[in-house]
């Protein structure tokens, strides 16, 4: 089978399967999960049975059902964040590249300062003002993350605008908007696609991390990071309860990374280190 005109490698197939399974779980959550995400159906941390596949959590909710619903919130929030981050970062990045020196200087210097503050620290400061609701979370992380998207898309676009075909469009008298949309954007897309995967991983881990700190998605909504936090103490008793959601987070990131690696390898060339001696 071919995807995008290329044959995926074995590792790429594994990645596609993992990502596909989690996305399916997120979409069809109500049909897959035997219970809702907030029902208390068993005793605290009851062991796995045929009814409760992964056992129950710290207040007796079915862990498997919460995992399925958790896919929805965790992946949904991370995806929304990444899309918003790309809309902001990509348009500002292209604008900086084609809009002239002044625009570029102002945007770049501002982003430099933003980038000098560690992302998590910045997010903590803002969340301490606003409190955590899902929209605040998405907007805050998207704005902070868009600085990274800005950096890359600006660099990619800068390499493109010096090319002669962009200059030819400029000499023809084309406007800024046309040049951005027709000459630069289509050629900037390939590197940005794999970047989308990487940024998604990053935001996904970031949202999970914030939820783990109790500052992300708030209960009673199920989300993987929060589930790890809720069940954290179980680990001291040798129970696996916090490891299931943590493993789901890890598997999702590995899956996306495998797909991204494969996309990157399509265009990669061997380096000098492998030359015949």
């Amino acid at each position, binding site marked *: 089978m071919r995807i995008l005109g290329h044959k995926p490698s074995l590792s790429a197939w594994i990645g596609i399967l993992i990502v596909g399974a989690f996305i399916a779980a997120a979409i069809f959550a109500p049909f897959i999960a035997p219970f809702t995400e907030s029902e208390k159906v068993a005793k605290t941390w009851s062991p796995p049975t045929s009814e409760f596949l992964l056992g129950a959590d710290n207040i007796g909710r079915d862990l498997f059902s919460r995992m399925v619903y958790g896919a929805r919130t965790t992946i949904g929030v991370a995806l929304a964040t990444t899309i918003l981050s790309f809309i902001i970062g990509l348009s500002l990045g292209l604008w900086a590249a084609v809009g002239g020196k002044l625009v570029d200087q102002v945007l770049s210097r501002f982003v430099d300062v933003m980038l000098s503050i560690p992302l998590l620290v910045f997010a903590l400061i803002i969340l301490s003002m606003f409190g955590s609701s899902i929209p605040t979370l998405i907007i805050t992380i998207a704005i902070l993350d868009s600085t990274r998207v800005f950096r890359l898309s600006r660099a990619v676009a800068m390499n493109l605008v010096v090319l002669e*075909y962009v200059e030819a469009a*400029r000499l023809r008298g084309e406007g800024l908007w046309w040049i951005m949309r*027709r000459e630069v954007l289509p050629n900037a897309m390939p590197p940005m696609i794999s970047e989308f995967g990487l940024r998604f991983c990053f935001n996904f881990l970031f949202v999970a991390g914030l939820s783990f700190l109790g500052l992300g998605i708030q209960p009673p909504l199920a989300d993987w990071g929060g589930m790890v936090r809720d069940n954290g103490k179980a680990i001291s008793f040798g129970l696996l309860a916090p490891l299931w959601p943590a493993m789901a987070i890890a598997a999702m990131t590995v899956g996306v990374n495998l797909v991204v690696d494969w996309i990157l390898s399509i265009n990669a060339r061997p380096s000098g280190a492998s030359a015949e001696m």
Partner: protein
Amino acid sequence: MTDNILKIRNLRIEAISGAVLVDDVSLELRPGEVLGLIGEGGAGKSTIGLASMAYARAGCKITGGTVEIEGQNIRAISADGRRKVRGEHIAYVAQSAAASFNPAYRIIDQICEMPVLHGQMNKTDARAWAIELFRALDLPNPEKFGERYPHQVSGGQLQRAMAAMAMSCKPEILVFDEPTTALDVTTQIEVLALIKKLIREFHTAALYISHDLAVVAQVADRIMVLRGGKTVEIGETAQVLHEPKTDYARALVAERKAADKISTHRAVAHENAILTVSDAVGLYESFVAVKNVSISVARGETVAVVGESGSGKSSLARLIVGLLPRSSGSVKFDGQELSPALKDRPRDQLRRIQLIYQQPDVALNPRQTIGEIIGRPVEFYFKKSPAEVAERVRSLLNQVGLPEDYAKRLSTALSGGQKQRICIARALAAEPDIIICDEPTSALDQLVADEILKLLGRLQEELGVAYLFITHDLGIVRRISHRTAVMLRGELIADGPTAEVFALPFHPYTERLLSSVPELRIDWLDEVLTKRKAEA
């Protein structure tokens, strides 16, 4: 034959992707003999050069044949054995000296590294020998020269230092991979003369790789013509130059010869000027790239601007189209003053001046179809309907000699020459009065370049368009231009009808430039050197 010092038999090299880069090539080299390898891009010359040291670049693999150096097949021996042969018996001179010297070390340390590590000399002897080589290669202040870092010396000097590095173990064979291609013509002739002297003095055999037949003719005893990884023809230099046996070699020789003489043009009245530049000064930040240049182009005329890199010829082109800020002087187009800044020029002025670039690869948007690329100026300047645009695209493709069905394809799969034709079609789509050509053929292979020049000539006859032709290649100038201007360090030092500029060099630099361009005669280099010595 046992007296062959290098013997390559049935060499085959493949890329990892499976493409055959070199196919069944055999050659031999006697002690002290120089074999020229000549061919266009993709002929496999450099790959063969590296394979003679049993080395293949990443992504390639030697899959068949033998490489014998002094009777020993170095493909069959251990990696340690090969390492011993490299440097001691066969050494390599790369095209780009700037990239091939390690930026972290002094030049002399990099040169002495080889004889010391191969156990041929101790450090002191190696230094003394390096200094002797610097002297033989005419490097300034030979005792101190090697103390500098690679980025501290000029390109021509670094190229000579690399020849010294190759000679440091006194190998029997040298491989020169386009050693003068990255240099300006006036530097090229110096380096070429020194390489020739070096080979003669030490009686070293050499493989000399170049795309320029005239350069190879100066140093090689025999010439091998390659195409697409296969041997086309091999023979004594004089025989290949004067009686080539194959059609391909004949075409190469004929094309190269055409560059040596001025062709006759129909006369064009120079008075009817379409573009007049007077006293223009152009600045790159604080650097003056164009100094008080005045030049004019008449309707239907070709004016060539020649000069070496850094002469300001491309800056002049950018100044005219409005990409380089003009700080003073004037540029008049069809009697109207052009605004210095691009954004202040009306659309009709932009339409009437078009530009063709050196690298057709990057001049075409890889994500647009050829129809979109050529059709856009028609739509943009003339506001035509989609059907009219498509009709115009078809006729333009015909005009530049490409099939009509190319309109739906992307340009990425096309060859360099075809891409340049599309660039020309895009320029013509605007129905310009003048096309500024910035080295449009220098990234192309000779025979392809020749066809592009012919196409440009034909279009001028048909449409009466004027050309301002920027080039470093005097061969092209002789063939196509009505008038020629010579630039040096931002200034115009000669300007007039081509025959006059070339016949009566007013400026010593013009003469130097002219005499440095290799001509397709075996004794050209010696002649020029003798003449220069007599004058000095």
